[in-house]
């Protein structure tokens, strides 16, 4: 392809900051990568594979933190707020790719950068200030120890009132493997412990201010496609109707009615307290108003407050996953407590799903007599709302028993000799859809590249809502192809563009490509998007294989492979092994789950075994 003198969609620059040496360098973005791996998740995963040996220790100074935007981030098309944080995951040892919205990603583009790579470690706590071309590493001083909201206030005073800030809370500072990175006060790149790596680098925050805008190759065509997408989104009953009005917690009563709502550390699939922690209850009690990310008409964020009582507080959320993890998974039906726990997770900067799941695991160990009250400091029973909230606080502070909780449920369960109490895959905890009921989710949890993640292949869309087409949850036939292509590969594509996944109920790849092509001047098309998603998925898989993961890690806990004890689908169980072989074949992998030479050639990754730290 011809070389362009100017970048369209992309800013054309990678900013590299080495906290060990203090070196700050700018590199041109290799635009041939745009066609291969797009940006965001794809680009960052590709770069990570070229930067490190996947076998290194995750908290090694050689593990970089890669903040990557997509070509659409900051463009002004609907919901184009997204950026990712990629590294080797401290929690799991797999590749990590945590996604966030808000305003930080667009501001990075406005400052002139597609990607920010943080290398090395600072000897003392610092923060980075990026003001267009001017980049400084500054002492963090009294910022260290502060919650993200206070951190943001103080940094804006020291830099620019319109600066956008990404920071770690005390969780990341104390190297909790549950720590994420907070941006715009309450948004989190939450999973996989990416905040622990930032804490290890003694990087408290990154503040950005930019005065450029994203240059478009064909503005007229881009804005035409934007208006088309805007119309589709605002007419869609889910993207606009449901998310805007009710938020994701509207799912609670539905998933519970189906008997697919994992309760008490996955010991059962229905929760008697579901209605008390439902979206309807949220609206009646704690919800104040909506909030939107950059350029987003959906405005799905809940701004909420508990106005009185022992769980008083304010913040954003809770979303479905948080309401579940801090609620039903812990047997807790007190919405004020669940909401407060959600606020606390934002303040400490820790992932609500993994935190709730770790507390639930501890509750099971306590109730079965493995953990004592003396060891924990107080009784930690399922259903005890105050104890759950107390456990969140001690986890965030790494105080007492919280020091053990702060490293997640996999290590907790191993440490106390009960690995069967860990409810996840590849050390990442599962989320709020029972794999006993949703066979597509069973396969997704077991094969997702960052561990038991739901969002990277949320087959509930097909298995319940009928998008793109209805496939009953208990049915296994054709699920492998459904998981692979319209979910896993498609999500990999979307995560690489900078647009939010919540638009995907209203639009398809075609509408996204209709933005990408005029934004960038590059030939993005539907067919290419399928291939790009496949390539990105395989790059992540190769990283994990080189990090030492094998077929033996594409598994689920025994518990969910046993019959569900309750609900309308009592008796159903995850039937993973029956469809794993078919899934590998469809992926073009051998029986050990490794991409074949033919597959690698098809994706243009023939030399990939030689990449990754060779």
């Amino acid at each position: 392809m011809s070389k362009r003198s100017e970048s369209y969609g992309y800013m054309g620059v990678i900013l590299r900051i080495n906290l060990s040496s203090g070196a700050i360098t700018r590199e041109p973005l290799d635009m041939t990568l745009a066609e291969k791996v797009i940006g965001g998740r794809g680009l960052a995963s590709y770069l990570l594979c070229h930067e490190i040996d996947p076998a290194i220790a995750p908290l090694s100074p050689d593990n970089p933190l890669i903040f990557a935007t997509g070509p659409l981030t900051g463009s002004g098309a609907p919901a184009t707020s997204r950026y990712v944080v990629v590294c080797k995951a401290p929690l799991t040892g797999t590749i990590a790719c945590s996604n966030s919205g808000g305003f930080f990603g667009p501001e990075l583009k406005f400052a002139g950068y597609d990607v920010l790579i943080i290398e090395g470690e600072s000897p003392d706590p610092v923060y980075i200030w990026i003001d267009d071309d001017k980049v400084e590493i500054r002492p963090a001083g009294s910022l260290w120890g502060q919650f993200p909201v206070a951190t943001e206030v103080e940094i804006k005073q020291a830099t620019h009132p319109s600066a956008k800030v990404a920071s770690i809370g005390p969780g990341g500072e104390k190297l909790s493997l549950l720590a994420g990175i907070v941006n715009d006060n309450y948004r989190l790149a939450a999973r996989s412990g990416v905040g622990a790596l930032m804490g290890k680098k003694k990087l408290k925050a990154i503040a950005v201010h930019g005065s450029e805008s994203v240059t478009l190759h064909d503005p007229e065509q881009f804005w035409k496609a934007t208006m088309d997408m805007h119309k589709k989104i605002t007419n869609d009953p889910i993207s606009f109707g449901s998310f805007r009005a009710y938020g994701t917690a509207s799912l609670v009563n539905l998933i519970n009615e189906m008997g697919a709502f994992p309760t008490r550390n996955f010991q059962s699939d229905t929760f008697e307290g579901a209605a008390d922690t439902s979206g309807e209850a949220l609206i009646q009690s704690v919800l104040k108003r909506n909030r939107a990310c950059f350029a987003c008409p959906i405005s799905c964020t809940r701004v909420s407050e508990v106005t009185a009582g022992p769980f008083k507080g304010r913040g954003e959320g809770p979303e479905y996953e948080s309401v579940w993890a801090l609620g039903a998974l812990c047997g807790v039906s007190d919405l004020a407590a669940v909401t407060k726990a959600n606020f606390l997770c934002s303040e400490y900067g820790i992932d609500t799903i993994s935190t709730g799941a770790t507390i639930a695991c501890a509750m099971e160990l306590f109730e079965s007599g493995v953990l004592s009250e003396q060891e924990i400091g107080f009784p930690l029973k399922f259903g005890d709302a105050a104890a759950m909230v107390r456990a969140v606080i001690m986890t965030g502070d790494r105080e007492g028993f919280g020091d053990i909780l702060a490293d997640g449920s996999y290590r907790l369960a191993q440490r106390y000799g009960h690995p069967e109490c860990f409810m996840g895959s590849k050390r990442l905890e599962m989320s709020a859809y029972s794999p006993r009921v949703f066979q597509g989710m069973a396969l997704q949890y077991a094969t997702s590249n960052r561990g038991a993640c739901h969002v990277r292949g949320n087959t509930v869309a097909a298995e319940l809502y009928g998008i793109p087409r209805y496939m009953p949850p208990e049915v296994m036939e054709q699920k492998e192809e459904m998981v692979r292509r319209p979910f896993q590969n498609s999500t990999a594509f979307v995560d690489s563009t900078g647009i939010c996944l919540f638009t995907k109920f209203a639009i398809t790849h075609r509408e996204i490509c209709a933005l990408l092509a005029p934004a960038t001047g590059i030939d993005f098309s539907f067919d290419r998007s399928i291939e790009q998603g496949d390539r990105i998925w395989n790059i992540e898989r190769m990283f994990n294989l080189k990090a030492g993961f094998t077929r033996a890690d594409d598994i689920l806990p025994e518990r969910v492979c046993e019959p569900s004890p309750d609900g309308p689908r009592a008796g159903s169980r995850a039937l993973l092994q029956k469809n794993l072989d078919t899934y590998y074949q469809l992926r073009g992998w051998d029986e050990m789950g490794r991409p074949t030479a033919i597959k690698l050639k098809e994706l243009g990754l023939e030399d990939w075994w030689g990449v990754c730290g060779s």
Partner: protein
Amino acid sequence: MVHITVKLNVSLRKYRSSLKINEEMPILIPSDTTLAELLEHILQIPAEEVAIHMVNGIKSDMDRILVEGDKVAFWPPVAGG
């Protein structure tokens, strides 16, 4: 006649606003009533507002005939993460 219960969720709650969240509303309906007939004629809720319909926790076709003891639940379009 058969006895069934109905739950209305999220935005559909406006059609029976006295119901508590997740409350089962008991209804007596003629034998051989289908799910579609229940929705249109008995509950009088516009079909286009309903995206998910379950009987006893299982997604069911709208032409399913309801029997004694069936627990019906309706949702508008909803989704999550």
